[in-house]
């Protein structure tokens, strides 16, 4: 397909209804993560046992003081969801940034400095394929104990591979291009060439990959909390709330529904924005 056939491919309106909704959702969730106490006055960790299993507003027994009901320990479900935004977004952000840095550096070493680096790093990447994320996290949790640091470490250790592969592949093709060879001929050092000439060309693609990986990381963080390997109780996190809810689905369905809505809304919004970024920044990745 030629550009003439699709003159507006990858452009069009910036603020489609989908993007607008996704941005609003992410804005709200970010506010929850940054300043949860401004949103809700209820205590997310301590509840009143007397008030346990209150249903949500609009159902018999529900009240405005607990709009989404209470859990088995009488804690406000809405407050726990609001406070639970922080671990999800925090772990997601930190992991994406660290994994991205690690991956780009590894990919550059492999792609630019030639064979021995390449063999070692791509060998490690191959081993990682035989060691999927959850197993890595489980092994780490068995050794250093569960917690947010375990979640971040596991996410970074498994998340760097795509960035490394991508950076390496792009580098290998870019190295042969004239603007890089010109920079080399005029005496640019490898570091200079990398930072000034190659990295800027990689950034659009990296942003797209990072966005989708952020969505993935939020899901994985909540999966770890669900398995009891991430955020530890009584601190609220979306995954551990669902894990608790499993035990009293028959009596309190709302405890198992709304934390999941929060996860899906957040992840879906990130994915929607990622799709749009992909169309705008890197049409080559479309359909992947």
């Amino acid at each position: 397909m030629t550009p003439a056939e699709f003159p507006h491919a990858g452009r069009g309106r910036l603020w489609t209804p989908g993007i607008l909704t996704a941005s609003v959702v992410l804005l709200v969730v970010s506010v929850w993560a940054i300043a949860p106490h401004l949103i809700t006055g209820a205590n997310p960790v301590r509840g009143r046992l007397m008030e346990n299993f209150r249903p949500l507003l609009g159902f018999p027994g529900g009240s405005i003081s607990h709009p989404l009901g209470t859990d088995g320990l009488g804690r406000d479900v809405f407050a726990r969801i609001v406070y639970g935004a922080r671990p999800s977004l925090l772990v997601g952000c930190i992991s994406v940034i660290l994994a991205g840095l690690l991956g780009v550096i590894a990919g550059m070493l492999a792609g630019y400095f030639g064979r021995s680096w390449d063999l070692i790093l791509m060998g490690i990447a191959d081993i990682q394929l035989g060691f999927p994320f959850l197993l890595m996290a489980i092994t780490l949790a068995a050794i250093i104990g569960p917690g947010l640091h375990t979640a971040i470490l596991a996410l970074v250790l498994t998340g760097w591979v795509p960035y490394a592969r991508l950076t390496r592949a792009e580098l290998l093709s870019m190295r042969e291009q004239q603007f890089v060879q010109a920079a080399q001929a005029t005496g640019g050092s490898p570091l200079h060439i990398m930072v000034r000439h190659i990295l800027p060309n990689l950034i659009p693609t990296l942003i797209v990959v990072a966005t989708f990986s952020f969505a993935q990381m939020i899901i994985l963080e909540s999966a770890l909390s669900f398995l009891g390997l991430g955020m530890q109780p009584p601190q609220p996190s979306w995954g551990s709330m669902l894990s608790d809810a499993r035990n009293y689905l028959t009596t309190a369905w709302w405890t198992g529904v709304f934390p999941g809505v929060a996860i899906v809304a957040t992840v879906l919004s990130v994915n929607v924005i990622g799709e749009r970024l992909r169309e705008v920044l890197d049409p080559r990745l479309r359909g992947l």
Partner: protein
Amino acid sequence: MSPRYILRKLGQALFIVWGVSTIVFAAVRLSGDPVALMVADTAGADEVQALRRAYGFDRSIPAQYLVFLQHVSRGDFGESLRFNLPALSVALGRLSATLILAVSAMGVAVLIGFPAGILAAVRRNTLLDRMAMMSALLGQSTPTFWSGLLAILLFAVWWHVLPASGGETWRHLVLPACTLGWFSAAKVSRILRSATLEVLSADYVRTARAKGVPQSQVFLKHVLRNALISVTAMLTLEFQLLLGGAIITETVFSYPGMGRLVIQAVGTRDYPLVQAIVFVFSFLLVLTSLLVDWLYPWLDPRISRDR
């Protein structure tokens, strides 16, 4: 297929399994005293000492590593602390349940993903296409442990049509398999859609149409066969993800597979068992990769086996 190619692939597979085992070995030693991980906090000093000697932790690290490699090559991971049985056989005892779950989930993914992806491609840019792609995006954004909870809530708690947990009969398999497969169905349909779209615009499809080959023939023989090539590679990768996803799904549904076992083993600090299960999982992953390496050239003769 040349012997050199087979040897190289097998070597690669061995390398990966060796790498994973070595990482696990190193991780246990890096953490300090591995015996402290295994015993309860109440264990006495002589008990710890005895266990240390029994596992060989009193020797030097290189010596321990050699012994470890020797044992692993014989499939000996030590005894599970909780079951008092060889860890590998405990793990393998749950293997079939996990494999059945992963294969059924794959079936679900293919049964939903294939028709959805093809329909979306053929009816491109219609409402149907949009809906299929929207639900694919939704499926990708939904964690299995939540869709699993919703499934339990609907089918077990409210409608009482299927059991919520356990793994005795095929009825126990329905909810876990659908939950696990749904996530992959989303991805399968997306990939198949873009693969089909790509093939539909290929020259040979236009030629086939131009020379009057019936639509159904064009579709089955030219479009689908070629679209499936790229999907096959992706399906293998997806199967590997399903195996990983089984850990969560098994926990949600209390399904008696390896995934649930490994979570329990972490909880009870049954270190030999964790190690054995990690080994079995990585072995399975490597095996599927080998399988696709062999399948791929068969599906697409343009790819030489001697790459």
